[in-house]
């Protein structure tokens, strides 16, 4: 088995009705539960604030985020276990983020023998 990080990208600010937001939340819960039951989840991960600070360069210049367009901002991550990248991609396709036109970035964790 290999490890993958799912990075959830997309705007978290949406003008949906409370009922629609609850439905969306329930879809997420159901998806996460299914993944957990199938043994794909190493860690459910965390949501990330959509703004923060960027410290960069030799001068360690500090700037305020967000650092990308709303649709590219990472809103959270999950650590997933899968056979290979193809399976990880298949697993990601059930993510409810696609309902709101978001994206899942699937990144293999580098395998390193030490």
């Amino acid at each position, binding site marked *: 088995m290999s490890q993958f990080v799912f990075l959830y990208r997309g705007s978290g600010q949406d003008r949906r009705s409370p009922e629609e*937001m609850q439905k969306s939340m329930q879809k997420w819960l159901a998806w*996460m539960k299914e993944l957990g039951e199938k043994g794909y989840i190493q860690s459910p991960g965390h949501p990330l604030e959509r703004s923060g600070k960027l410290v960069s360069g030799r001068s360690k210049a500090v700037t305020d985020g967000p650092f990308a367009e709303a649709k590219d901002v990472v809103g959270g991550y999950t650590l997933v276990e899968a056979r290979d990248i193809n399976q990880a991609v298949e697993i990601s396709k059930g993510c409810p983020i696609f309902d709101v036109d978001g994206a899942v970035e699937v990144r293999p964790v580098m395998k390193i023998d030490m």
Partner: protein
Amino acid sequence: MEPSEHLFRREAGRMVAVLARIFGVHNLALAEDVVQDAFCRALEVWKFRGVPENPSAWLMATAKNRALDVLRRERTARTHEPELARWLESEWTLAPAVAERFGANEITDDQLRMMFSCCHPKLSEEAQVALILNILCGFSVGEIAAAFVCSNAAIEKRITRSKKILAASKKLFEFAGARDFAARLTAVQRALYLLFNEGYHSASAASAVRADLCQEAVRLTRLLLELPLASTPATHALLALMCFNLARLSSRFDESGDLRSLSEQDRSGWDRKLIAEGQLLLDRSATGKEVSHYHLEAAIAAVHSNAANVEDTDWAAIVSLYDALMAIRPSPVIALNRAIAIAQLQGPERGLEEIREIADSERFKSYPFYAAALGELELRSGRRELARTHFEEALRLSRNPAERKFFERRVSACLAPAPVER
């Protein structure tokens, strides 16, 4: 843990009510933004960490913290309620003052204040109902439009306009010392009654929509009873009426969503617990001198709810209740229902006579159940051809698919060769 059904929608109403009190009703949009934020946050966090032990408390706490942020950031930019403006001067007093506003009793009172505020005399009854649904029940414009079978644009306009009037009133309705309390209570009862009826007679094909609206009306009327000043005999009678009707709501339609007449309904599907509650409330409403139309309508619904079938129904009691209703609130629809009850009691010919005597019957021009009642009674009198013409007229006037299918069935009943038993 699974969140309860419609949790977000219900919490939306509670949170907006509290926040509108804190920020002032003229900052209603700000209150709505904070609520939206709280839901976004819940969505973000819960999907990774699961639903918390007490989701309502979590949402309220999140809204409270967001409210504090907003108050600290904008303390000079906006005018909040005067009392709070004073607290705002110091962090020492701000946090406890806001926390107090989020206490359980305060939340109930704030919802009631908002309910009374939504029934502003400058607003039409339709606008009041739409506003209550939007602010206190968490329905979006799209959801209200779907329930009322109205265009989004029309509802959007109605709500935007109403909110402007609400904001311009500067203050939420205060019960203490309100000179117009009685008048405002009457408007609130009326709005809740209309909200229930909107659900009960909804043109929307989706049965879930109908039940949603009726249940929201029941929830808010229960809330109204918690306010001692509003806990009048009429409010009890109103809730009794809703209980009796909600108990029988699902039986009004069959499995395929078709409308069923009273005689076709499966009475074993009626919710006995709700009927018992309705009876209890109706008993409690029988105090004081006032007999409102809610009392009479609830009493009629009680007679139906307690009858084993159409034949066993105490039609004499129903006729006299309709007589009383005609005396205090005459309308062609009530006169029509009274005539139908008389037909049950004294035969279809008498019913037809009564219908012919209804004043104002031209107001029925677009009301399909007038033609349908004529059809029903002609059919029972054995005049099938005449009955069919009336049902065809009803069919022509039908306002939604459920009514259409129902009248189609009545038209074919006139063609059937078998003798009609009713």
